[in-house]
């Protein structure tokens, strides 16, 4: 064993599948001065890897989870530590059969071989399954069973050969920090263990269920909860033993009972996600010495598992006579939003999280973090959904973590709608109009912690006025209302009032503020005071990191306005790159400023009723802020900034005012708008229908780090002189021969009828775009053409989809197909820009 070091460039804590693969990937990327620690023994230190069921189903509706699962499966395969057993998800209910059609659609999107089976076909592949209790199955031949412990050992060995030193049975007692390069920031200093302290530049926490406890040592938070997944190993079973293999039959996921059956040599592992959520605080997990089995194999609570056994015997009768040889309450990690926690912690510079990762995606996610540490951002995939910086403070509390983990545990095998809303932990943050919106019957959708009205029941009368049709299939109508279409048409005819309080607003100030803002942004921020600039921020590799608005508020002050889904990540990024000389200060002013949007042809009349300011295009030009006094009645005037811009593509303004003044402005606008058809208008218009008609891109949907501004159609004619993050990569992309390979397009569905003659409406859940021959469309990078957003275009009378297409397929009128629920629907390319008011006459005219 090497001598315990006092220094290292990077210390990785945790030698489960993630920590081992991480040091392996870091070694591949050239890191040599590495230390890997674990408090347990090797090769199985007692974390969740040691009791994992070790199988990978390659289809997930979520792009990050699916592609990183595939990436991981391939890494296991490349090491020869994987067997393709195949796997079948069986359905007992018609609802699940519909879900399996959706699984087929995602399989096509991600290029995974799959087919639907009749009950008899399921029984042909798995003869011990009772076909009488199922309606069908979804079969993936490439479902694989992997050896995660040996994979970890191999990856660790690879790192050791590059110089990594490994210390098992070494407990981390503290992670000390020192002042970071920016005032008020902290940076990693040392890892203190029971064998000594190691001064280090980087620390990675890959501690599975213990990750938050370890992060807390450094003053950081990794919001995850250790949760029980019950598993019983039953056998011996002759038909399994006769295979002579670890795995000889496809794995069966009994989706409607949230249960799986996976052969393990002569036995069957029966695992459950159906029992009550059982969460343990990290402090309540026993040590290796205290645990009867391993720390993460908690005592089995049989009462919780009994219903599952009955259901398992229904499906596979021979299980009934098999002995329960081993049964555990195995711990795994759950987060508040069911996504992993990857990346640098916002609290401590160079303290990295590689946590809440399961065996099925471990190697791929380790690669993500290794690339992030090496290149400044992951290359293998855009990982914004897993970015640890995404959380807002209320999401990091134990109360929130536990409530959310408990709520989504039983959805592990659930049928989850793309727009599904959480039941618990609602109304954590909301604009100052909440009581007014409730009176108007607002249906709230939650964006991270923020509540936003999606539509208002008070507008139900507009449905008849505009003759809006409902949707006949419940799935398509779930989390949707025809009112949202009616609100859209009213906005286009009259005007709408939109609560934008969830905007995350930051300010950069100081003598270096403008130069720093320019360093973050692709577009020029050194513009006259009062000018606002819509701009991408790029990754070092030139892909989208953010997409937001920056406002030149003063000579030495720049305001950043970004969407609620990206506020945490954007704040982290803006703080992370602050100059070290103290010339720029950062402030989050979200809670001080409220924003209302007023748009539609009557917007100038409504807003004009509150101010004498010149609201003409000359007096309040597009893209500029104008300071005004709004007369809110009763002698009350409110100072506000009018910003002529629109994410719905209509005449009007974003109105910025002090938070406490917001209700007065709301009331004054509603009063002034009564004669102008002003209606409160929800996010269904703002975020979907209005946006899609204008072809406006959304960060996290159309805009990801895998795409650059040229491909997204957001490149400006010239590149500014000033340096900015990602500039070199961006310049290379601009000078590439032949131009961008793909273009972001809007497509229109030309026939909605399914095989049963029902009109169907795509939900924007990565539905694949196919050629007329039914072939997938991919580019030379392997990026697939899929629906990134979908929704109605009420003013153009078409249902709209957005997708990247190879430029040769991007010409308007090109006929293609979209797959939805495993059926094909014809679509045609509408273009790369707006389908409504393409000349922006309403916006700028």
């Amino acid at each position, binding site marked *: 064993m090497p001598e315990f070091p006092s220094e290292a460039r990077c210390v990785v804590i945790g030698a489960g599948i993630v920590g081992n693969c991480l040091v392996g990937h870091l070694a591949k990327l050239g890191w040599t001065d590495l230390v890997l620690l674990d408090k347990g023994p*090797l090769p199985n230190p007692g974390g969740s890897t040691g009791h994992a069921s070790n199988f990978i189903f390659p289809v997930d509706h979520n792009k990050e989870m699916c592609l990183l699962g595939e990436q991981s499966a391939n890494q296991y395969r490349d090491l020869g530590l994987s067997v393709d057993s195949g796997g079948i998800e069986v359905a007992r209910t018609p609802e699940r059969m519909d879900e399996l059609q959706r699984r087929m659609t995602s399989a096509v999107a991600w290029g995974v071989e799959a087919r639907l089976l009749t009950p008899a076909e399921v029984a042909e592949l798995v003869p011990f399954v009772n076909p009488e209790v199922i309606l069908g199955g979804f079969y993936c031949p490439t479902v694989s069973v992997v050896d995660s412990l040996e994979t970890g050992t191999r990856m660790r060995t690879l790192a050791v050969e590059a110089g990594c030193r490994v210390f098992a*049975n070494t407990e981390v007692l503290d992670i000390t920090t020192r002042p970071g390069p920016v005032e008020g920031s902290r940076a990693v200093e040392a890892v203190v263990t029971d064998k000594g302290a190691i001064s280090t530049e980087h620390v990675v926490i890959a501690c599975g269920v213990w990750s938050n406890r370890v992060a807390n040592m450094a003053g950081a938070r990794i919001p995850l909860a250790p949760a029980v997944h019950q598993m019983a190993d*039953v056998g011996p079973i002759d038909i399994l033993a006769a295979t002579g293999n670890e795995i000889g039959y496809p794995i069966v996921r009994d989706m409607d009972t949230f249960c799986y059956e996976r052969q393990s040599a002569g036995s069957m592992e029966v695992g459950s996600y159906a029992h009550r959520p059982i969460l343990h605080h990290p402090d309540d997990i026993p040590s290796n*010495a205290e645990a*009867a089995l391993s720390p993460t194999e*908690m005592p089995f609570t049989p009462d919780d598992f009994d219903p599952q056994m009955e259901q398992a015997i229904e499906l596979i009768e021979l299980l009934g006579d098999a002995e329960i040889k081993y049964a555990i309450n195995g711990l795994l990690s759950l987060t508040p939003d069911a996504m992993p926690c990857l990346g640098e912690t916002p609290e401590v510079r160079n303290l990295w999280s590689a946590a809440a990762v399961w065996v099925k995606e471990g190697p791929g996610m380790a690669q993500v973090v290794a690339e992030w540490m090496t290149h400044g951002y992951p290359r293998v995939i855009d990982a914004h959904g897993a970015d640890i910086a995404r959380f807002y403070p209320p999401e990091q509390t134990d109360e929130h973590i536990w409530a959310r983990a408990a709520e989504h545990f039983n959805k592990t095998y659930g049928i989850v709608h793309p727009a599904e809303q959480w039941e618990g932990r609602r109304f954590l943050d909301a604009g100052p109009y909440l009581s007014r919106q409730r009176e108007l019957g607002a249906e709230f959708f939650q964006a991270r912690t923020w509540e936003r009205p999606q539509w208002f029941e008070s507008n139900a009368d507009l449905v008849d006025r505009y003759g809006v049709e409902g949707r006949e299939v419940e799935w398509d109508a779930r989390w949707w209302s025809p009112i949202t279409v009616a609100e859209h048409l009213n906005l286009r005819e009259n005007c709408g009032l939109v609560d934008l309080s969830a905007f995350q607003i930051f300010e950069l100030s100081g003598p270096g503020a403008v130069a720093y803002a320019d360093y973050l942004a692709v577009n020029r921020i050194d513009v006259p005071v009062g000018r606002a600039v819509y701009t991408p921020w790029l990754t070092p590799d030139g892909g989208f990191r953010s997409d937001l608005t920056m406002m030149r508020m003063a000579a030495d002050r720049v305001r950043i306005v970004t969407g609620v889904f990206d506020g945490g990540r954007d704040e982290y990024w803006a703080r992370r790159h602050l100059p070290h000389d103290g010339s720029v200060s950062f402030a989050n002013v979200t809670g001080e400023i409220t924003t209302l949007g007023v748009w539609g042809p009557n917007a100038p009349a409504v807003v004009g009723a509150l101010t004498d300011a010149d609201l003409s295009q000359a007096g309040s030009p597009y893209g500029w802020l104008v300071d005004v006094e709004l007369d809110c009645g009763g002698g009350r005037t409110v100072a506000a900034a009018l910003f002529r811009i629109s994410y719905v593509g209509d005449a009007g303004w974003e109105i910025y005012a002090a938070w406490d003044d917001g209700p007065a402005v709301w009331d004054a606008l509603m009063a002034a708008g009564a004669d102008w058809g002003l209606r409160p208008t929800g996010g269904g218009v703002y975020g979907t229908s209005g946006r899609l008609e204008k072809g406006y891109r959304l960060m996290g949907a159309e805009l990801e780090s895998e795409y650059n501004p040229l491909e997204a159609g957001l490149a400006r004619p010239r590149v500014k002189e000033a340096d900015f993050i990602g500039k070199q990569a961006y310049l290379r992309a601009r000078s590439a021969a032949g131009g961008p390979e793909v273009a972001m397009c809007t497509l229109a569905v030309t026939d909605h009828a399914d095989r049963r003659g029902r009109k169907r409406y795509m939900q924007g859940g990565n539905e694949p775009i196919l050629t007329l021959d039914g072939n997938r469309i991919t580019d030379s990078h392997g990026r697939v053409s899929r629906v990134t957003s979908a929704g109605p275009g009420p003013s153009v009378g078409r249902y709209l989809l957005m997708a990247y297409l190879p430029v040769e397929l991007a010409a308007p009128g090109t006929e293609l197909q979209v797959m939805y629920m495993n059926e094909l629907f014809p679509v045609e390319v509408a273009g790369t820009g707006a389908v409504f008011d393409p000349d922006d006459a309403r916006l700028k005219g």
Partner: protein
Amino acid sequence: MLRILCCVKRVPAPGARINVTADGLAVDAAHLGFTTSPHEECGVEEAVQIAERCGGEVTVLTLGPPEAAEQLRYAASVGAHRGVLVPADGGARDPQRTAAILAEAIRRLESADGAGPFDLIVFGNESADSGGFQVGVRTAYGLGRPIVNGVKGIEIDGPAVRVRREIDGGFEVYEMEMPAAVGVKEGINLPRYPTMKGRLASKRLEIEILDLDAPLGGQTMVRLRRPAETVSETAILGHGPEAAPAVADVLESLGVL
């Protein structure tokens, strides 16, 4: 038909390190599951095997908290037919008190419906937690039954039971007229695991409750103390043939080469 009674105790299932509560009077079970004391698990298995072999009914009796019903159900899941719980009051327990309660419970069960004495009463040799080695002997004595402890084999031979136990270099064999009692040791058999159906069937077991008590016997526990730990460390010496020199070095350092 043989009537066999098996006495079991609910005990913590600890890991390598056993923590003691702050007052020093109990095992800290915060992280622990509970199980049947291992000798008694073998006792249940032996009783079930005898019943299967010779025809008979197995009753399992426990003195413990309400949660000890879990251990009765577990016994039912591997073949026991009846489960009887004598709820413990949570106060101090000692072998005399426990044995007196069990003996009285057995008398009640035997007198109910004129059932008569159990042919065989099976104890574990000692419990996994307190390890007093007394309850079986005291109970049998209280009932006036013969008992052999340390039993590693049981044969039923008509009205007699022949048992054997290990001694250095061989076995001792005892024969007793039934009704009799034995204290069995782990290793007498390999207890089966419950089947799924067995587990589900055990959920339907109606647990009989007997409320009984007896005076303290005089033995009191002062405190539990955890002995100093011996820390051992595992080092991987290598893989495959390359590991041979390192293995040889270790063997040499141990003086075995």
